[in-house]
């Protein structure tokens, strides 16, 4: 009998404790608040351009088109026979061996014309064939911008930064 009574008491006490614990848990919630946010930004460092050439009436006309997804700056070297005459329309400036385009080229956009004329090149039996070689280089604008911020980006040391365009948008 004594054992049975003890068991009853323990069981009743356990039930009461459990009920108190449930109430106690509910009574101890805390006041709180929160807010979250997330953001991303992409790095674009790739650049891709193509040379478009047209030959007509002893004149080669060259334009450079941005075929990539990032703004680029370009320069072009045109090499040919003595007497070849190279001229650039709006935006082209010559410095050393290269012609620099003074505008940032957005994706899909082409430069204005660079023309190489061989009208004045003397032709003889021994000298009646020659090549006009066009070399173009492009650098993604973010890399040029980083170079101008003082970062050593490894761009060619002979690249004339003074002839590269400056964009007005604060972020590019």
């Amino acid at each position: 009998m004594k054992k049975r009574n003890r068991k009853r008491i323990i069981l009743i006490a356990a039930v009461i404790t459990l009920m108190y614990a449930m109430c106690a848990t509910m009574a101890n919630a805390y006041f709180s608040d929160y807010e979250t946010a997330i953001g991303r930004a992409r790095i674009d460092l790739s650049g891709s351009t193509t040379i478009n050439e047209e030959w007509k009436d002893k004149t080669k006309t060259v334009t450079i088109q941005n075929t990539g997804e990032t703004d680029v700056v370009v320069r072009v070297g045109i090499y040919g026979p003595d007497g070849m005459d190279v001229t650039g329309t709006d935006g082209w400036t010559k410095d050393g061996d290269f012609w620099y385009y003074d505008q940032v080229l957005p994706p899909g956009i082409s430069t204005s014309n660079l023309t190489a004329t061989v009208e004045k090149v003397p032709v003889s039996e021994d000298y009646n064939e020659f090549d006009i070689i066009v070399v173009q280089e492009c650098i993604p604008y973010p890399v040029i911008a980083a170079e101008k911020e003082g970062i050593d980006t490894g761009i060619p040391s002979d690249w004339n930064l003074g002839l590269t365009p400056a964009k007005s948008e604060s972020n590019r």
Partner: protein
Amino acid sequence: MKNNKTKSSKRTIILTAAAAALFLIAGVIGALAAGNAPDIRSDDLEADFQLQHLGVHLMENGKAVGKRSDNVQAGNGVLLSQLKGKFVPGRVYEERIAAQNRSDTDQYVRIILKKYWQTAGRDGKLVKDTELDPALIHLTYGEKAAYNTGAWAINPREHSTESDTYYYRTSLKGSDTVSADLVNRLKVDGKIVKDITEEKSANSAGQTVIKKKYKYDGKYICLEADVQSIQTHNPNKAIRGEWGVTNVSAADGSLTVGE
């Protein structure tokens, strides 16, 4: 004997149920008593009872940008919108992260900041890129809030990686109070532009194409901010219960981060 045992079990069950019922009834009676108390008012004894309401905003560059899962929000939950999706390595951008008390109750706050790189996976979805170093994403601490000695304290127990950091602040008093900036500038290390490989190929026009491939081209920097606030009443229990930390304590309106 069997009958006695059965009777005894029944008695136990009945007694237990009766004890539980008594407990519940006592609680209900207590609540009813409070609700049905006679309407005797005294100017000295009358007091307005108001539930505490906390509210905190996540601020970026002076604007509330955070959001909550219950859609009660001031912002759209987007950071870095001023970068317009792109940025220049090495350039310093304004990025001020702070907290604002949007209720009329004092509260303690903390901000959890995470910075990391992301790459587009095979299915085009952005995933965390653990091969790229988050230390190349630089955040500058606010001038008035030098962390660890000023208004914000870093919790060393929760600062587990370069990318995840927990900061604690003292109380935000009064409505519309804005904390000192936790951080105020963002920059990606310019040396990422030097991580290059070169490829040579010929195109269909017979031209030789030399391509430089930048390792970080097409990668994304990602910044997450999470501001949390708790009550100033009984704060140490709230800190343990709500934030789950044991080395942060409150006293005299300040939070102290222990080792």
